[in-house]
């Protein structure tokens, strides 16, 4: 019995300490906005690493998801003679939900895992310690540029995802299944308003914040061994993905009901 109480207490302390460390990493990353002289080159380098290099997976996924949405949507809508609503159906699905959520999940898998592993490996090879001993704060030099690059890149990737999804849906719906081109675009234009785009953008920003925070924190806080890095990378992707799905429900409830 006493062992169980001890275990419970130790677990609670560990969880609270972990949250404290995560908040400290976040606070340091936020407070070190990249400056022009030293921070900006690092930021641009990281935007390339986490953003540009994620483009292919985002573009291919966006296109195919749009195509599948159009195919599935058409088979249902055509039964009710409502295939003209295919455009707004696809656009709203992508802008409100699939764009931000699927991009966040792909980003966590592609860029988040790479960030965690890279920072973890820097810790294991004493590169972070050597920065500290050179009087260079690793939170400023390593963590902050990566955090800001992720926060900046992901909403752009989500926008590209949604845009290519709509193009994919146009290819299937209009070019292949024969939905009228004018109807496809004009109904989409009238049914999708700016607020849908803004709300989708807010979701993307929140997901970008959470996914990148978890990725950099897990790397910075990992046990510096091969097993520790492996665990940190896995838990970075799993926790970020679950949080994205949970937050998506909360944000949808708050913004769309």
């Amino acid at each position, binding site marked *: 019995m006493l062992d169980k109480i001890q275990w419970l207490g130790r677990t609670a302390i560990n969880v609270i300490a972990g949250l404290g460390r995560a908040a400290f990493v976040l606070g340091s990353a936020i407070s070190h906005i990249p400056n022009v002289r030293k921070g900006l080159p690092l930021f641009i380098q990281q935007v390339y690493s986490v953003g540009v290099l994620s483009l292919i997976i985002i573009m291919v996924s966006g296109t195919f998801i749009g195509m599948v949405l159009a195919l599935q949507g058409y088979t249902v809508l055509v039964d009710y003679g409502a295939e003209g609503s295919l455009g707004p159906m696809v656009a709203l699905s992508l802008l409100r939900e699939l764009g931000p959520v699927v991009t966040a999940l792909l980003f966590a898998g592609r860029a988040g895992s790479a960030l965690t592993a890279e920072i973890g490996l820097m810790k294991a*090879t004493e590169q972070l*310690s*050597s920065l*500290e*001993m050179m*009087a*260079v704060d690793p939170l400023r030099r390593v963590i902050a540029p990566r955090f800001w690059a992720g926060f900046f890149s992901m909403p752009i990737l989500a926008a590209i995802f949604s845009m290519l999804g709509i193009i994919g849906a146009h290819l299937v719906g209009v070019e292949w299944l024969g939905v009228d081109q004018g109807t496809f675009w004009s109904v989409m234009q009238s049914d999708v308003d700016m607020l849908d785009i803004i709300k989708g953008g807010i979701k993307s920003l929140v997901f970008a914040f959470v996914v990148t925070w978890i990725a950099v924190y897990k790397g910075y806080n990992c046990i510096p061994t091969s097993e520790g890095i492996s665990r940190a990378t896995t838990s970075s992707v799993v926790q970020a993905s679950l949080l994205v799905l949970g937050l998506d429900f909360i944000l949808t409830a708050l913004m769309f009901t």
Partner: protein
Amino acid sequence: MSENLVEIKNLTFNREERCIYNGISLSIPKGKVTAIMGPSGIGKTTLLRLMGGQLKPQSGEILFAGHNIPELSRNALYEVRKRMSMLFQSGALFTDMSVYENVAFPIREHSKLPENIIEKMVMMKLEVVGLRGAMHLKPSELSGGMARRAALARAIALDPELIMYDEPFAGQDPISMGVIVRLIRDLNDALGLTSVVVSHDVPEVMSIADYIYIVAEQKIIGQGTPDEIVKQDSELVQQFIKGEHDGPVPFHFPAKDYQAELLGGKS
């Protein structure tokens, strides 16, 4: 003004339940090569990390040029660290940068010198360690010995007052070891540094150290010049410097009675 650059007084450090140091005191004199020796796993690297402020002791003082390291604020600690450097056992070179960029890194971070001056400074540091010709190589293209010399060039880039070497001879071939031994001594004398060498390589340390501390069992078990250390009566010191497999530091890790365990099983 004290002749010691670093003074450690009554230092106690525990890692979780385990006591690493129990009230140890030692001094690192200015301009000398001081060695800290002892068996593996007794916390020699930990002592360097304590001196660099990367770990905080439970009690005691670590004075660097009069500053008590554990009590410094984060900003003050970073200011003090500009006056010290550390050569890590792995070298800890930044893998995404060339040798040149690695050595230029601390200069760029802490100065606003124009690039042509930085280039000259880097060349000079690399010439000292014999790696000017390897400046464009990436760390992955260097041998272990070269990586450590490149890391040494980076460590002296800002002309620190104190340089700490963490196991500088570990895993080196005899030629690389000879080069590093010579570099530690020559750099110390030529640049007026104060050096702390943590190692368990007895002959190499004996050949360059001005003063040696031998650490074991959470305390200092022997100290003196290399000649004095050789003559010490302590069985533990003698076992360590002669590399005897059994003695006060037993061959076997503490365990239950062998026969009883064989008959009774692991539990």
